[in-house]
């Protein structure tokens, strides 16, 4: 009796954490686990706003206004001591998401065995999503660090330090995973496709589907992986599959490509056509209070008078850069009359007359009407869009241009150009097709974490910039590995360029 009583007093089930034995049992656990992987992906990209520092600041169009650390990133001086730069060279958050995916892939089959409600379709669909996310993460970190440790199981409790794996092997793994997963993924989560019938986890999910991985998401990542490897035939193949999916996405032809003003609705994640153009994105939704002060680009790019909490924004596109990107007056994104110097469209930039023009293409601030004010609380909810239809379309154009299908490239290019009020492609004005495609990518995808990777691909294609070639050869296009990681895992070796 006594020992029973003691056991009773001492066996306390905590309300703060879920123990291992209570985690992988029922279908709701699968949902929690899978959402966890998504959440960690979002967290990896949002942390320290790294998605934009990696893609839009490093040797790209955005520069720091006053901060020395941001200027260092812009100048590719990545071994400086600033805490921000040190943090960005740490890959832990990506591996947290990878570990969560590994765990899910290992443990979800247990739920499938235990819980009859967890249907094979649901199980396969969940597994495919976890695998696609894991493949995406590996692709993402290969672009940042080159060779990275390839860990595909959780190693739970028996963690061992791992060496860096050849990046081609990692990319091959990612590609295989994506190819293997596509068959289980639907185009939409509205129950209309054989891969997902009825309601997904009992929810009307189509409000949120742009936050989830779908069939064309996997294709989109594949297209980018092959482009990064320079395998443009495969890029063209998968990018084309994404383009062909258009009719299945419920994306009205009128809405696609998205014009300069509707783009904000896509980032806002409202239920509308534009949001269907998101191929891979991670939402910061306003309704379930996933909004935040940091982790979306607005925290970097906005200042007074659009929001109150910054006198000067952290990053901006210098005027010269703006003028060199948006050269054509009729562009609805941003246009300036070359003669009168009057701004003809300021949809994406405001305050061009000030020292630091403000980038407001992405401006999903918490619902103004609820906040009773004109200057809202700087609490942001824009989706982190990794890939969208226009991005994949231009990637297809890029592939076609490289593969010498110049007309094919120009058709796509013109579709986007005309949507922005620009005249059709003219080689005399816009240069070679490849150049025109990359210029268009730069204009269209500004502030969406693409520029740095586009630049590397472009320089590889052109192969005419000695300095940059040197950077590519010596590994200067990669990030240094954070010193703490090197100390903690002696098997890791610093990228040679940063030694």
């Amino acid at each position, binding site marked *: 009796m006594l020992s029973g009583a003691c056991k009773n007093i001492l066996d306390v089930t905590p309300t703060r954490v879920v123990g291992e034995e209570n985690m992988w049992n029922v279908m709701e656990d699968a949902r929690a686990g899978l*959402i966890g992987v998504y*959440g960690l992906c979002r967290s990896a990209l949002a942390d320290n706003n790294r998605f934009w520092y990696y893609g839009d600041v490093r040797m790209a169009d955005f520069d720091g206004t006053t901060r020395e650390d941001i200027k260092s990133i812009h100048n590719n001086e990545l*071994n400086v001591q600033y805490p921000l730069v040190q943090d960005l060279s740490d890959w*832990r958050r990506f591996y947290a998401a990878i570990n969560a995916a590994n765990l899910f892939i290992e443990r979800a089959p247990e739920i499938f065995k235990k819980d009859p409600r967890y249907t094979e379709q649901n199980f396969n669909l969940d597994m495919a999503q976890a695998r696609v996310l894991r493949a995406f993460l590996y692709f993402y970190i290969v672009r940042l660090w080159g060779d990275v440790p390839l860990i595909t199981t959780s190693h739970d409790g028996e963690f061992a330090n791992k060496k860096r794996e050849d990046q081609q092997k990692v990319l091959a793994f990612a590609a295989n995973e994506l190819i293997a997963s596509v068959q289980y993924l639907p185009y939409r989560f509205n129950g209309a496709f054989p891969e997902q019938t009825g309601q997904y986890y009992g929810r009307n999910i189509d409000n949120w589907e742009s936050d989830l991985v779908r069939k064309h998401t996997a294709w989109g990542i594949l297209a980018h992986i092959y482009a990064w490897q320079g395998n443009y035939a495969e890029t063209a193949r998968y990018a084309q599959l994404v383009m062909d999916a258009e009719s299945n996405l419920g994306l009205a032809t009128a809405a696609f490509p998205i014009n300069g003003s509707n783009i904000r609705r896509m980032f806002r994640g409202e239920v509308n056509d534009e949001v269907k153009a998101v191929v891979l994105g991670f939402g910061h939704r306003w309704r379930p209070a*996933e909004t935040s002060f940091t982790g979306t680009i607005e925290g970097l790019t906005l200042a007074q008078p659009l929001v109150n*909490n910054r006198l000067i924004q952290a990053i901006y596109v210098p005027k010269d850069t703006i003028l060199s990107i948006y050269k054509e007056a009729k562009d609805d994104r941003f246009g300036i009359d070359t003669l009168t110097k009057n701004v003809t469209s300021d949809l994406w930039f405001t305050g061009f007359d000030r020292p630091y023009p403000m980038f407001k293409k992405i401006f999903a601030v918490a619902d103004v009407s609820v*906040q009773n004010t004109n200057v809202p609380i700087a609490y942001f909810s824009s989706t982190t869009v990794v890939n969208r239809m226009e991005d994949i379309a231009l990637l297809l154009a890029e592939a076609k241009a490289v593969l010498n299908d110049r007309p094919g490239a120009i058709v796509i290019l013109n579709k986007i150009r005309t949507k922005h009020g620009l005249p059709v492609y003219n080689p005399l004005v816009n240069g070679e097709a490849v150049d025109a495609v990359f210029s268009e990518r730069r204009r269209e995808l500004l502030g969406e974490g693409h520029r740095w990777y586009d630049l590397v691909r472009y320089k590889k294609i052109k192969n005419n910039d000695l300095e940059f070639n040197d950077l590519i050869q010596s590994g200067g296009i990669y990030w240094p590995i954070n010193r703490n990681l090197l100390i903690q895992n002696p098997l890791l070796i610093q990228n040679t360029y940063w030694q």
Partner: protein
Amino acid sequence: MRIVYFLGLFLLMGSSVRAQVSPPSSKPKPQKKITQKPKPDTVIVSMPVKPVLSTGVKDLQSISLPLFPASSLNQALKGTAAGLYVQEQSGEPGVYQYMHIRGTLLPLFSAEDLVRSQPLIVIDGIPVISNEHPFAYDVQLYDYSRIGPSTNLLAGIDLDNVESVQLLKDISQYAVYGPKAANGVIYVKTKTGKTKKAISFDSYFGIANPAPVTTFNGATENKFREQFYNRYASMAQMQNYAAFLKDSLNTVYYGPSNWTDSYYKKAAVYSINASATGGTERANFKFSLGKVGNNGVADDTRLDKYAVGFNLNMKPVKWMTATANIMASRMDRKRNRYSRDRIAEGRYLPDLSQPLSPNNDIYGGMLTAYKEAVDDNLTNTLNGYFNMGLTFGKVRFNSFLGVSYTDGSRDLYNPTTLLETIAFASNYFGYSQRLVIDNTINYSYKINDNNTIDFLGGQSINWDTYRYNYAYGYRNGTDYIKVNLLNKDDLQPSIFTRRLIFRFLDKTVNNQVSFYGKADYKYKNWLTVSGLLRADGISNMQPTNRWFYSPVVSASWNIKNHLLIKNKTVTDLKLRGSFGILGRNELNDRYAQGPQYVVDFGWSGEPLVPSYAGTVGLVRPYTKGYIGYDIPWSYNEQISVGFDFSLWKGRLNGIIDLYANTAKDQLLGVPGLAEYGYTKAYKPGMDVNNSGVDLTLTADLLPARNKVKWTISLGANYNRNTLRSLPDGRKSIIIGNRLLQVGNSVDQFWLLENNGIYSADNEVEINPANQRKLNYEGVDLKAGDPRWKDLNGDFTINEKDKKLMGHMMPVVSGNFSNTISYKKISLGFDFYYNLGKNILNKEMANRFDFINRESSNDINSIKEITFWQEQGNVKKYPLYNVWSSVIPYRAEQDLFLENASFLKLRTASLGYDMTQLINRSFKKADVNRFFIYTTVNNVFTLTPYSGRDPELVDYTGYDTGYGLPIPRTYTVGVKMSL
């Protein structure tokens, strides 16, 4: 339900034993007290006090509380006993304060570690909750202060109601209190009922004076910065000159710097306490009431405390005693107005490029915004017990039921004028509750005249519950509705918009079951040997390792009684020794679960995003760290030897204690596993040792016949902290800015050695091997960069060139007091000192590192109003290139490390005992005591430290500039009993 079993079982056992025992004669074992002999009118009734191991220890010496207008127990105890170190990181009344007995047994990285290293406070046998549970830090972005009222619970103790305080430093003393006592015990005994009808009245009134400060304005700051701009700035950097300093005609920053008029004020402190006792030998009581008001000298801070106590003793029959005791307090705290703390709670970072104005007209205007603000901090504490003792001959049963309960609430509303146009509100309510049942059976067995054995068996259960509800929200617009984020009836959002309200509920439970047995053997009057064995199970340990068995043995040899009976010089001489093991309590319930899942997918600056796509997800605790299975108990292993001596009829008394205490197999979060997503993994195997000596000497300097008496007493603790081992047999582990290295102390700074400045590029050393310049992790050093010492000679400055130096906690600390008395007048001087302590002057580093701190616009960019206060000497630092990417003014270099030893005259007092005078003067007067006194507190501090008061640092050893000054206070007081 199960509790009933226990009680029932015990009572059953009791009655069966009763039948066997004959004449009731034994009496409760009294605690020895040095301060006061029990007066005949005192009836010691029921003794809830657990007898500590009676040997191996100096018979416990009571600490006499000084005449200090203390607002908390911590403050009252500071500098009163060897081996007790009290850290007072702020002079703000009622804030958290921390104590360490004989150093810390774990490295202190966070506020949570600090709570884990705190001693147990026992009040009349109740192991009280003395700290709010640190689990609330889990939902906070910064741990500067805990959400809720964050009031020091030990400020709730009515100090006038305290009869004595004892410090249980040795394992043989504290082991009876179980795993919670593994950091030592501070035992507080309150005043009990007496048969004599008496009314007592204690009161003091005083004035606290702010110390004069030197202020400066924008012109000084501008001049300070110009040096850097003139020497190093590029055109672009010139253009980014701090906006607030650009216009020298701007009176906001260039006007008079007279903000101190609004910030520092003379403040009143007072205490009134009254108590009444009365009753008979069969039943008596004490009732007390007290009010303490403690105003801070800075920032309009204040603590109001109301305390009430009731003690009832009964002896209905000869063999039974019963005591009921309740002590309750209510504290209302008015807090500081630091921008950092306000913003840290709100998380919303406003534009921080404009600091507060040093001009009182403007600063004072800003303060009027606080008139619209609400900040109600209420804390209630209640400690009580019911104790019943049954004595049947040599057998004595004791049954103790104790409760320690505290709750705290904070209603906060910051109006729109304080944070751009955004109103912030938060509501907190939390409680902590401990229920204790403790049953003991005591049996004295006298073998013959020379040999006696006392047996004690006991069993106890503790139920701890901690819980809080917390919500915060933002709103734009008006200040019409201030608090109440949620409607009371349906807990739905009221006026604040639903999507900008964030709610947190948390609860944690920790239960403990213990069994213990103890035997004291006594031979003649000169030898005692004791042994204790206990088994403890706590719910916060994993089921496979739930129980821990702790043995303690101790012995004491009274040499005086044995060998030196006739010696005239030696009045008393005793040798003691003890050895023991005691399991350490674990505060956190996470470790009991092994691998686990939590909601943890926030990111830097936004740690608490609960959902993705509107759905809650669960992940491993990647940020907190991996927790595996087979986590063992950590435990203390202590060995000690001590002498007590008394010479020349007690004119010289001394106690010397040598100890070596090791906390073994402690869990440490070891950084690593980044490729598995974790920040760290919790692993057992950290052993930390504290070895040292406590010395207490008391001497009467003048002969006994002399009318003037002069007593000096010196207390000193020398403590050497050593890290003995690390998990996985590692020799060193880097954790953040700190290095734990086996063989060194856990409280050391890990810093670069600074040797000046490179005034030209060609002064930078060149590696002859590859012609590469000395660099900082790849960035070449240039003119204007610091000359850091390349310790390992590899021409790269990195963590390998950092050295462990200094100590965050004092190596030697203690007190020195003088009491001079003549007839009824007494004069006292109490000094307090710390030696071998260092401070890293972070505030100075911050002032120099203005470029990085201001541009980042994060929590470190905040400048408080005290920014405009001259502290330290800026002239003694080299002028580095503040824009350099090697961060020349990083705090982690010995440039900012200073010796912070100090000697402080804490109290000078003059007292006059008027009892006789009054009784003589008024015939009808029947006064027991009438004592008046006056004191000056915090009279002066001697220190080589160039910054502020060297006490104003927190556990990290960094002087951040935060913490309100500890004021000099003048008081007059009276203690009377009628």
